């Protein structure tokens, strides 16, 4: 899989399927057992991890949190906070923020670095439905402004961000991938999501040619059962998926 400049790739899959591990490989935090990661030279990444807890002992304001790993010009901090709509929380203590405010602050600190690649691990976790729509809209506008590549991990197996260019479904390997289905024109989905959400959300239709059994083995479309699943082992009808992670220039 590739993440190109200006492209949004959404990773989906069940718990423990390797979504976060894939994101960590792209960031260089985990070395891949197989295959390799190719990153563009001098790639600047912005990362929003899944769980960040700041406990009481750490005195940390939002603006200091922004400059965690390096000095950032004040103007750039203010700009980023403005983009994510949390300017008023500039001097607030990080631990007092609500779930939605904290995710926005996390996005702001990623944006302030002006990254080439933005890696977001479940950015809408712990955020209510309306907040989720707003954060997805925000991610899209960040992508449009910075022209960065976005690798986004979704907690939902079927509903993804409409601006996603490519959805990759993982479960220990790439199960299937493709663009999401546009639901904005469907009356049924408009009823389900509401008129506000429909342009922001999209549905991803899985097309698996194999099933994961509870014991970890894989049953293929032709009825055979194997211990592992490899794209090129003759069980699949789709062309081989290249085992490549990272961000490349468009």
């Amino acid at each position, binding site marked *: 899989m590739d993440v190109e400049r200006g492209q949004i790739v959404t990773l989906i899959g069940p718990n423990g399927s390797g979504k976060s591990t894939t994101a960590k490989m792209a*960031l260089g935090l985990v070395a891949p057992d197989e295959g390799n990661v190719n990153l563009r030279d001098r790639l600047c990444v912005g990362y929003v991890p899944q769980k*960040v807890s700041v406990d009481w002992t750490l*005195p940390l304001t939002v603006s*200091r949190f922004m400059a965690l*790993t390096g000095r950032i010009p004040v103007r750039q901090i203010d700009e980023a906070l403005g983009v994510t709509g949390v300017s008023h929380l500039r001097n607030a203590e990080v631990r007092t923020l609500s779930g939605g405010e904290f995710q926005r602050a996390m996005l702001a600190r990623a944006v302030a670095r002006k990254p080439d690649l933005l890696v977001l691990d479940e950015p809408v976790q712990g955020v209510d439905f309306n907040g989720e729509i707003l954060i997805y809209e925000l991610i899209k506008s960040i992508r449009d402004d910075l022209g960065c590549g976005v690798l986004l991990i979704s907690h939902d197996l079927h509903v993804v961000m409409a601006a996603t260019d490519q959805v990759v479904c993982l479960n220990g390997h790439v199960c299937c991938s493709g663009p999401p289905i546009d639901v904005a024109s469907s009356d049924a989905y408009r009823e389900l999501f509401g008129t506000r959400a429909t342009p922001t959300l999209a549905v991803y239709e899985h097309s698996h040619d194999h099933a994961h059994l509870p014991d970890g083995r894989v049953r293929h479309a032709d009825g055979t059962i194997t211990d592992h699943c490899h794209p090129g082992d003759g069980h699949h009808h789709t062309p081989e998926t290249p085992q490549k992670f990272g961000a490349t220039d468009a």
Partner: protein
Amino acid sequence: MLDDFFVRALVAGVGVALVASPLGCFIVWRRLAYFGDTLSHAALFGVALALLLESNITITVFGVSVFIAVALMFLQKRATLSADSLLGLLAHSALALGLVTLAFMTWVRVDLMGFLFGDVLSASVNDITVIYVGGAFVISVMVFIWRPLFAATVNRELAEAEGVNPDRDDVVFMLLMAGVIAMAMKIVGVLLITALLIIPAAAARRFATGPEQMAVLAALIGSASVFAGLFGSLEWDTPSGPSIVVAALLFFIVSISPLAALITQNRPSPIVDGG
């Protein structure tokens, strides 16, 4: 000025308090209090070893602390014991080993209480030189690794993704801690070093809005504790090391009292400038 033993004690004590404060903040933030305790208990074994080998006490204590820290990192990866059991095992074994070794050396007459609870009143000009030269070195290294070390404290993966090397900084921090323990032993003794490290930092937390501010406040509170403790011990004829710790404790109690809440509430509130 340094002719007077009391002035020397003040200068040495303030020096250690200044060096201990930024490290103490990290001990509080990273929950390393028991780790610090283990290293300082091991310092007594270092003292015994220095007397046995007739080597420099500060350097030997530093070496033993580093050895214990490395052993701890190794055992945590290998052993099946939990980290706190392992720390308890090492801390008290090292202390016991030190006491037993000292008892075997019948030919040396040691002031055991001086090592356990500190002997700041006997600080020499040489001790002060060691504290200020070593302290200046520790502080400059701390300034250098401050931002990445703090970033890794908040979130290790976030820091690593943004180009920080947390493993390197962890080792450097551990070496600095061993160094500060070797220096602080003279002031408050091996049993009370952790107190001098964490109590001023804990007292500073309530008033601090940023990590740098907390370190500076901890340094001020630590120095004030040294002053208050030493003058108190002069006034009431109490042991100097424990008096310094009691003074720090009083500052901590003030910091969690309603009095402190008044001070923090009167601070100007964050400016609301709208989105």
